[in-house]
Structures are given as structure tokens and as C-alpha cells.
């Protein structure tokens, strides 16, 4: 399967900001606004115009919806900040306290896996009693 080496960027979007208020971070709406990956149209073609992509780094992998967007450079992908992006972000803060939210090396490939709900992402962290 075709796999591309890319630089991963994360950040906030206005639509995401609109849906998070009022405890809506656990809803389907939030998943639509935060669980996607923007790719340059050429990269999107190279991957075979996938519906979903798996983004992998040394720290984890996450499957999100794929969207082609002219605004992206080739070999550059964007995931809105939030639970999906955080699965693959490095905890290394290089003495600043801030994890590597922008500019991480990653690979991206088409994926048939389900995009997890935000609740499912936290299931690995359930409380132990």
C-alpha cells in the first residue's frame, strides 16, 4: 500500500471552536470537525483518493477522515487539535513544557479502520479501582 512521509501540523479551526461549547466534545458533531486530516490534492491522489487515512508517528497511530485541500503543501498534513491528534503527538517538550504539536514527522496511508469516537479514544484510560 502507498505510504507517504509527511510533516504533521495541528491547530484549531473556527468550526471546531463553535461545536465544543456546552459539553459537545463527546458528540458526533465534534468527531466531524476534529477527526479529519487535510492533505495536498496531489498527495490525496497518490494515496488513491481514500475516504480515511491512518496517520502514524513513533508515538502512535490514528485513523481519521481524509480531505484534500489546496491550502496544504505537498508532504504536509493537518489534523485539528484535539483527542485524535493527541494520539500521535510526541510528549517530548524539549525543556519548554509544550509537546510537539506542530512539525512532527509522520507517515500517512489509506485505511479501512473505523474512526473512533472521542469516548472510545479514552477507553484505554478507564479508571482502575
Amino acid at each position, binding site marked *: 500500500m502507498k505510504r507517504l512521509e509527511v510533516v504533521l*501540523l495541528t491547530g*484549531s479551526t473556527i468550526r471546531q471552536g463553535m461545536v465544543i461549547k456546552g459539553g459537545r*466534545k463527546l458528540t458526533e458533531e465534534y468527531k466531524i470537525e476534529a477527526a479529519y486530516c487535510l492533505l495536498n490534492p496531489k498527495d490525496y491522489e497518490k494515496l488513491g483518493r481514500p475516504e480515511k487515512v491512518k496517520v502514524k508517528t513513533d508515538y502512535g497511530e490514528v485513523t481519521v477522515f481524509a480531505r484534500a485541500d489546496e491550502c496544504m503543501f505537498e508532504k504536509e498534513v493537518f489534523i485539528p487539535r484535539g483527542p485524535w491528534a493527541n494520539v500521535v503527538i510526541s510528549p517530548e517538550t524539549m525543556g519548554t513544557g509544550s509537546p510537539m504539536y506542530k*512539525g512532527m514527522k509522520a507517515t500517512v496511508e489509506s485505511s479501512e479502520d473505523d474512526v473512533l469516537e472521542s469516548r472510545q479514544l479514552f477507553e484505554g*484510560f478507564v479508571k482502575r479501582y
Partner: protein
Amino acid sequence: MIIKNVVCPFCGSLCDDLTVEVEGNEIKNVDNTCKLGYNKIVGYSHGRIEAPLIRDKEGLKEISYDKAIDEAAKILCNARRPLMYGWSSTTCEAIEKGIELAIKIGSLIDQTATVCHGPTTLGIQEEGKPSCTLGEVKNRADLVIYWGCNPFHAHPRHMGRYSTFTKGYFTNKGRKDRKIIVVDVRESDTSKVADIFLKIEPGSDYKIINALTSIIIGNGDILPEEIGGISKDRLEYIAGEMVNANFGIVFFGLGVTMTGVKDKNIGSLSRLVKELNRNTKFSLMPMRGHYNVSGAGNVFTWLTGFPYAIDLSRGYAYYNPGETTANDVLARKEVDAILVVASDPVAHFVNPSIRRLAEIPLIAIEPYTSATTELADLIIPVAISGIEADGTAYRMDEIPIRVKKFIDSKFKSDLEILTDIINRIDRYE
């Protein structure tokens, strides 16, 4: 009832010209607001936590407020290495109380800047921040540079109220009197309204900032023909625009703060602005996210000497980002209890930190269900500051503004809850 000049408790722009229509004790409509502020204010009653909750084997169950304060006091008193985190979406008065509690229990205390403009603070501590107020930008700025930020999405009214489209005393033609430059790694809605858009290679901010500085101090001849995807000629043109401006301002966001060498980017940006001030008037301002994140930094600093990541366990304030910052102490599994106020770390921290949050007792003072309340052991519902509670907040240019209360709430404010916890701890001691 129509209430005018309401302050919006969403982003660091802290727009203070909202008109809110209140009927009985309900918000009917909000005018003059952006989509973000509108959703926060009109949607204030959606998804609220209705009573204090505590988690046991079967899940969350309701308890009385008094019992919740008791449990919170117990968890914090019994912890050997507690952390208090959040603070950017509450009032300065509550933050002040938070520091009092942190001193009392010898806690680590950190605020959301740690995953946001933390590196900005480090850069500023090294190099200083030649800055100004947003009023000066509105009235004087004829060159506005947005570097690594997208105000159209994160601060929707910023350009309209303070920086781009607004008319000021010396900029009475508004947008026509200003030149807008956007520097970013991707096209954004902000770059679409710019006069000049520099699309740079990811991670090349440091090189480009220093190249501009070199050109401005007269050492441009040593530069290569292309830097970070931008030709030297183009950089020389940009440097010329900067030097020839009457009043320039660089607004920068996480695109600079979080990329490559992080705090060193900000330090070099500050040096660039300092050099520009030998020729003209130039300023620098971070685009702060939450409405009172600037206030959190200020209150922390005036009470402890440091803006974030403070360890008060030694009986004096100790500050060492990378060691005492929230993500580092959590990933190292150092922390054994956490109090979260006005924030949602589970949605925004990296996985190793969240794993630790799930292992330890987590107290959340929070109005809504959130990713953090999913993992919380004790949830204390609270009135929303800026809607149901008043107090002071700092705008991104560090101007304090009083946020209003225009709805009564059955819940106590952050300030009252923290005061109750402190009083309860006093009773134990």
C-alpha cells in the same frame, strides 16, 4: 432586558461591545459577537453538570456540595505531589485564590499556557517584548504582520475591531491605510485578505526571522539566494516594507511558538522588532487564546514571580519549564492528585499525560461534561465566569477588563468553591 457593553468570555480579544438580551433568567440573544462567542454565550445552559458527582466502582453518583468540598479537601491534603491545572478561563480573583490554595498544600501549579504560549514566555524572558496596546494598533498601525496565526478562525473579531478593517485616529481610511502581511505554512482565511502572503516551508520561521534581521542591520549580503522557500529578493522587499512603516506590529500565534526551535523563534522575533525600532516604531504581540490566559500569567507572576509551571512544594516558588510543567510531571508519573479548574486537559494533553490522569484522583471544577469529566473522580459544577459570575480578565495586550455577570446561577463561582476548599482544609489542620 437589554444589557449593553457586555464582555465576551471566549478568546483573548475580550471584545467589550456585546449586547445581550436577557428575559427572566435566560439569555435570548447576543449581538455584535462572533460565531465562537455566540455559541459560548447562547449555549451556556447546554450540557451542564447539574450536581456534584463522585466516582465509585459503579460510576458517577450525586453527592451534596458540602460532601464534595470535604472530598476535595481530603484528596488535596492526602496527596504528596498534587498539581493544580487550568485557570485560563476563569477570573483573576479565582486564580489568586488558586495560588493561595497551592501555597497552603505545597502544590505544583500550572496554567494552559504550558501547551500554548509557554515557549513565548520563555522567549520573552530571554529577549523582552517590545509591545503596545490594541488601541495603539487600531489608531496607528499601518503595517500589520500576522505570523503563524489565523485570527479569522481563532480570534474572529480581532481584525475587525483592532487591527485590519477598523478605522483609527491616524488610520482613518481603515483597511486602505494598512498593509497586511501574512506569514504561514499554509493558506488560510486570513492569508486570503492579505496584501502579501509569504508561504514558507514548515519549520523555517527561525531562518526567515534571522534573515530579515540580517537584512535590516545591513548584513544581507551574506544570505543565500533562497531561505525557507522564499527568495532573498522577496525578503529584502519585506524588510523594506517593515523599515518604511510608520507603526508596525507583528501578531504571532502557535505557528511560531510551537514549531522547530519554539522559544528561540520568539527570542529572534523579539530581536527583529528591537532592530526595527532603531528605524521606526514596531511592536510584538502574541495572539492569546483563552480569554484570561494572559491574566493567569499576570496573576501567577505578581504572586510568585513566575508565569507558569510553578512548584510551591519547597516552601518557596521554584520554576523550571521542562521539569515543573504539567505534561512533564504527568508523563514522569510524579503527580499523585490533580485539581483541574476551567480547563479540559484530557482533550488537549498527549497520551502519556492522560494515562497518568486516569491513574490518580482527579478533581474537576467544571460547568460542562468534557473529556476531563469522563476521567474525573470528583466533579464540582460551577457558575460560568463572564456569564454567571463577574471578575477581572486580561486582554491579550494585558489590559485588565471587568467581565460581567448577567445571569443568576444556582452554582457557586470558581472563587467561592476554592475559598470553601481552603476553609475546609483549615478546619482539618
